[in-house]
């Protein structure tokens, strides 16, 4: 097929992002509101664009994505947008903008599931990676096991019943006084701690073996802290951090490997902000090595919410002829 360039828009939660992706694999531009200085049409610099101010951010972010890619509204081949899951007020901005652009320039419109976007993020950095593969998505807002069966065909195997892993990290970090962002802080503190010193329960959901649950683990940490406080004993923060991180890692790693074995997948892809956690990565690498499974991890920029991954996912729907029409709506609970 010829050179297909897709303008992708993502606004499902905090960030407003736009990107231009060529042929599902090549990033021509990848713009996120929080990350760059944007130049207005007339050369002035737009001051820092705040999170969640999607209406203010959408135009500058889209313009910049096109400009950096050397494309125009006319030269792109299609418009893609995240239509769920997420915060409905945020999603609506991206969806309304995408529909308007698609209409104005008579371009095909493609709606993309945010989780599928995460699944496809690795496609952008690993040209040899092809479906089928298993994907472990771990972020502040999502924790899922999904399988990409084929290009444009993905299926969610399991989700969290309560907290997302990233959220659990944030909350535990706060409880032990480490501050925000929780993941990196816990990882750093855990380095000098003993992961075996305190054992926290590895939560599981009996009737849905691929689902996750972290609130029990979180409670266990909090109960432990409370207990120690009542007994007047000082808490070894490093040990708590290490123990908690070990517990979460065991759960994520264990379930991912188990799923891969059951489905006969020999490739696991990680995605989402928590994929940046080195301890988790190492553990998964080790276990994958043992099981003869190849692990793919995207770079940090592609782990967090971004529009490039949406463009990648969209390409495969595009080439299958799948299109959304102008009634495309935001679906905050999509696919969960």
């Amino acid at each position, binding site marked *: 097929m010829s050179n297909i360039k897709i303008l992708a828009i993502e606004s499902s939660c905090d960030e407003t992002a736009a990107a231009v992706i060529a042929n599902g694999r090549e990033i021509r531009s990848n713009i996120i509101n929080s990350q760059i200085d944007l130049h207005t049409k007339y050369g002035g610099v737009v001051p820092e664009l705040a999170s969640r101010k999607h209406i203010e951010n959408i135009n500058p972010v889209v313009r910049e994505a096109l400009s950096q890619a050397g494309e125009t509204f006319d030269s792109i081949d299609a418009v893609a947008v995240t239509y769920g899951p997420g915060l409905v*007020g945020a999603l609506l901005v991206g969806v309304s903008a995408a*529909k308007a652009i698609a209409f104005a320039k008579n371009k095909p419109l493609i709606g993309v599931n945010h989780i599928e976007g995460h699944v496809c993020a690795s496609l952008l950095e690993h040209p040899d990676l092809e479906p089928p593969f298993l994907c472990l998505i771990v972020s502040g807002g999502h924790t899922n096991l999904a399988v990409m069966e084929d290009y444009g065909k993905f299926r969610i195997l399991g989700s969290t019943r309560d907290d997302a892993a990233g959220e659990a990290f944030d909350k535990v970090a706060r409880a032990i006084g480490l501050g925000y962002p929780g993941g990196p802080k816990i990882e750093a503190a855990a380095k000098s701690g003993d992961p075996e010193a305190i054992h926290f329960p590895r939560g599981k959901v009996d009737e849905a073996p691929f689902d996750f649950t972290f609130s029990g683990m979180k409670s266990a940490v909090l109960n432990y802290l409370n207990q120690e406080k009542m007994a007047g004993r000082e808490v070894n923060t490093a040990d708590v951090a290490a123990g908690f991180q070990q517990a979460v890692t065991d759960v994520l790693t264990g379930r991912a490997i188990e799923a891969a074995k059951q489905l006969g997948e020999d490739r696991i892809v990680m995605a989402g902000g928590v994929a940046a956690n080195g301890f988790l990565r190492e553990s998964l690498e080790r276990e994958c090595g043992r099981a003869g499974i190849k692990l793919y991890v995207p770079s940090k920029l592609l782990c967090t919410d971004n529009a490039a991954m949406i463009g990648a996912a969209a390409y495969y729907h595009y080439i299958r002829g799948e299109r959304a029409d102008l*009634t495309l709506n*935001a679906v905050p609970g999509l696919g969960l």
Partner: protein
Amino acid sequence: MRILGIESSALVASAAILEGEKITARYSVDHKLTHSQTLMPMIDEIMRMTGLRISDMDAVAVSGGPGSFTGLRIGGTTAKALAMAADLPIIHVPTLEAMAYNLCAYNGFICPIMDARRSEVYTGIYAAAGGQIRALTDEMAVPVDELTAMIRGRYLSDIPVMFLGDGVPVFKERIAEALGRHAAFAPPHLSRQDAASVAVLGALMYERGEYTGADDFSPRYLRQSQAEREYVEVRPATVDDLDDIAAMERETFPDAWSKESVAPYIDSSIYGVLTARRKGSFVGYAIYQNVAGEGELFRIAVDKGCRRSGIGRRLMTVMEEKAPADLWSLEVRSGNHAAIGLYESMGYRQTRVRQDYYRDPAEDALIMEHRVREQI
């Protein structure tokens, strides 16, 4: 001149195309807030039917608020993205003004009311002349009783005030009770938001140069600051309020009145004192006189921490309602711009100057008057 008008601020989803002096297309549906699904297809449909494209337009006019968050987000973003992709300017048309414009042939006062929940309405008072609309007040979000009090105080005439908007079915009875024959309600085909009005008003604004680039548009939610949201209770003062009043006098005026000076104004037949409280805290007061149909505002003060949050306006509105007069007057320091602004918005106009009237510091006094029952 071709304008695409978009209206999505509340329950109505509407799109229209204005070409010169003709509304070529107009598509309006008032049925649930499903604009995220319906608005873009509606725009697509009218373009298709007229053989026009967005690139044929000269500008996009969008109803910019107040209204529902969801509706304004959808309409606003749709307009911004259309204008960006097609490289067109955007005209931010105030929603209430566009609604009032539905009735630009009416000879009386026009009052659009949008249900803002919590017994509040988004509203303003407008008047028409020569097919044009002008705003007599700011857009505001107020309890409906405050609106009727304001109308009773200043906008009664031989011609009823014409109400329109989705606030009508909610508040019709209350309004009729408060205003009787002074209230009328627009018929269904003129009563709601309409993209055609947005487009036509947009064209007028465009001619006046009142447009911006696509990136500069933001919806105007008209949500009040937190201070304004908290309900202020205004009622006549009693002797128990004297301490509070005297304390605020000392804080506010160099020539502070003492408790003893204020006392005779309470419980008098020609004088009145009103106090304002929010969550039980004393936040302001007004002292006035009303004799033989002429009123004079002597003193008004608001707690330093709550200025510019509508308390002064509330006090004066209630004052004019409780002690109706044909003419109100007051004096104000010529340099007190904030107060002058408030008085002007309440319909006061400067009539005279008393030079060097004030001490500490020396300053001129402006005499301002407000003739109630405005002539149209």
